[in-house]
């Protein structure tokens, strides 16, 4: 079977396939996609439009009234929207470069052929990506307890006074950034590692023959070759930071003083604690617009030649 497949793979050309299957087989294709289409209409297209529609209404006492763009006007006046975006921005600006940098460094070291225990190091640094999201946030919450938490006890070992991790605005942000970085660095490391392994060995050889040093090879060969992978990981992490919910919900519930409130957590609070569906829908669409902008930027960057 396997050999037939390989031989056939070599022989088959996409164009032949299109022509051969095109005319005869209109209906079977439609049958294959039918379940997905039905599900997407009911559980994606409809709710998507419904939330847009609801963002033009205000509900009070069970009665909905058309308010036009008022919910969107509220977005700009609401200090918590500003703060949640600011928090996401702070996390993003610090966490994403930190994590991608670490992941790149790790991947680069773990790609050296002289390195011993390579698979062991890879396995260990990847392990955090195997944890359940809420579970790891719980573990960090327990470890970061101010009185006698494991982290503060470790710090006391080197003479650092206890830090009030989750009750101080900046420490809470740092704790959140640390937790996310712990969870996702290995994941990004593996993606970058796969990118590194697709760089042809001849490129290194050629650079070396031309007299390039380690640093030059890294900046002139490795980084440009990794460009698409780095853009991909950066954009995915950026969107991840923007849509952060699980970690800050468990670690800090958005506190203290809303220092770790993120747009999705705010959406959750407005929608499902205050049951202000109209406003929650407007927040949701703000998120859609921001994500779309990031996606367009990614698309542009990917197309551009370095």
């Amino acid at each position, binding site marked *: *079977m396997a050999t037939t*497949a390989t031989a*056939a793979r070599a022989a*088959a050309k996409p164009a032949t396939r299109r022509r*051969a*299957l*095109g005319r005869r*087989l*209109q*209906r*079977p*294709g*439609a049958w*294959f*996609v039918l*379940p*997905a*289409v039905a*599900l997407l209409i009911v*559980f994606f297209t409809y*709710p*998507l439009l*419904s*939330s847009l529609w*609801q963002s033009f209404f205000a509900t009070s006492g069970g009665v909905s009234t058309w308010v036009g763009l008022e919910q969107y006007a509220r977005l700009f006046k609401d200090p918590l929207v500003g703060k949640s975006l600011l928090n996401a921005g702070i996390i993003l600006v610090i966490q994403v470069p930190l994590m991608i940098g*670490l992941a790149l460094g*790790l991947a680069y070291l*773990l*790609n050296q052929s002289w390195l011993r225990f*390579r*698979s062991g*190091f890879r396995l260990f640094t990847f*392990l*955090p990506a*195997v944890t*359940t*999201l*809420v*579970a790891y946030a*719980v*573990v960090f*919450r*327990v470890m970061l*307890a101010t009185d*006698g938490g494991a982290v503060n006890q470790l710090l006391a070992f080197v003479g650092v006074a206890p830090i009030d991790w989750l009750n101080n605005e900046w420490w809470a942000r740092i704790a959140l950034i640390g937790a996310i970085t*712990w969870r996702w660095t290995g994941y990004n490391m*593996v*993606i970058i*590692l*796969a990118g590194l*392994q697709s760089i042809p*060995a001849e490129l*290194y050889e050629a650079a070396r023959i031309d007299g390039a040093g380690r640093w030059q090879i890294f900046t002139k060969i490795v980084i440009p070759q990794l460009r698409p*992978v780095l853009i*991909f990981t950066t954009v995915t992490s950026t969107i991840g930071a923007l849509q952060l919910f699980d970690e800050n*919900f468990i670690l800090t519930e958005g506190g203290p003083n809303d220092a770790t409130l993120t747009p*999705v957590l705010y959406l*959750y609070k407005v929608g499902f604690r205050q049951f202000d569906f109209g406003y*929650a*829908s407007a927040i949701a669409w703000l998120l859609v617009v921001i994500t779309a902008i990031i996606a367009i930027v990614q698309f542009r960057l990917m197309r551009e030649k370095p």
Partner: protein
Amino acid sequence: MTATSALASVNPATSDAREPAPAGRGPALQRGILRSPVYLALAIASVISILPFAWMVIASTHQTSDLFGTPLPMLPGGELWENLARLQESVNFSRVMFNSLAIAVVYTVFSSIVSIMCGYGLATYRFRGRGVLLGVVLVTMMIPMQVLLVPLFQMMASVGWIDTYQAVILPFLANAFGIFLMRQGFLDFPVSLIEAARIDGANELRTFYRIVLPVARPQIAALVIYTFISQWNAFIWPLLMLNTEDQYTVPVALNTMIGMSRVDYSGLMLGSLLATLPLMLLFLVFQKQFVSGLLGGAVKG
């Protein structure tokens, strides 16, 4: 080069590192001194990665008071069964694990079938609206799912499904990422095989079932694992849907334990350990598929 080999190659004889060592750069001793910081950095990274795991295991076998006492316990203790019993008593944890498993397994089976069929249809056939559908799938991947929360919540409330398994499972069965992953996989499928089957008189479904599925097994394995992980980790939607303890999934139950007036920390650590265990087992058994599934086609395998 695939994402899987990035991690899963355990055989030191086959060098899977691509950056070759420069030849003849000084004596071995000098090299060793230059390289020791690298080993140190990697060792530190490994320790940081593992410590929270180790602590989770140690903490779940001790009393709560030990977790905050000085010195911290460095070895597993003897309180595992007591912690387990309390965990069972406070949130009915065996039921919670069962809920999580049942929801994740049912979701994985149906969502994978939907993704495989749709991906195959998109990659192999031409039909009206194919381009539109592909566009919708791509857009769905880009749109944050949180925008759907309010309308889906209302929908589930109006049909009286709040607090049921199906409310957690059904809305996200059509997984755009999974569909796209399968479409990319099937695009590479040798068409001559399909045509040969057809000439032999097999109908479309039989061709799909007998010829296509067996060859696509590795991609399907990655899809299945990716789908299972995403449902096992799911938090915000189950949190909105499930509101009686007997229906909770593991993440929702852990969240409830945090909010209790007297938090049972060692129980919480044990719960977190048990929440992570199924993913750990999957990882250890299916390392290759796990990695390519986790990356979800980020790097084409």
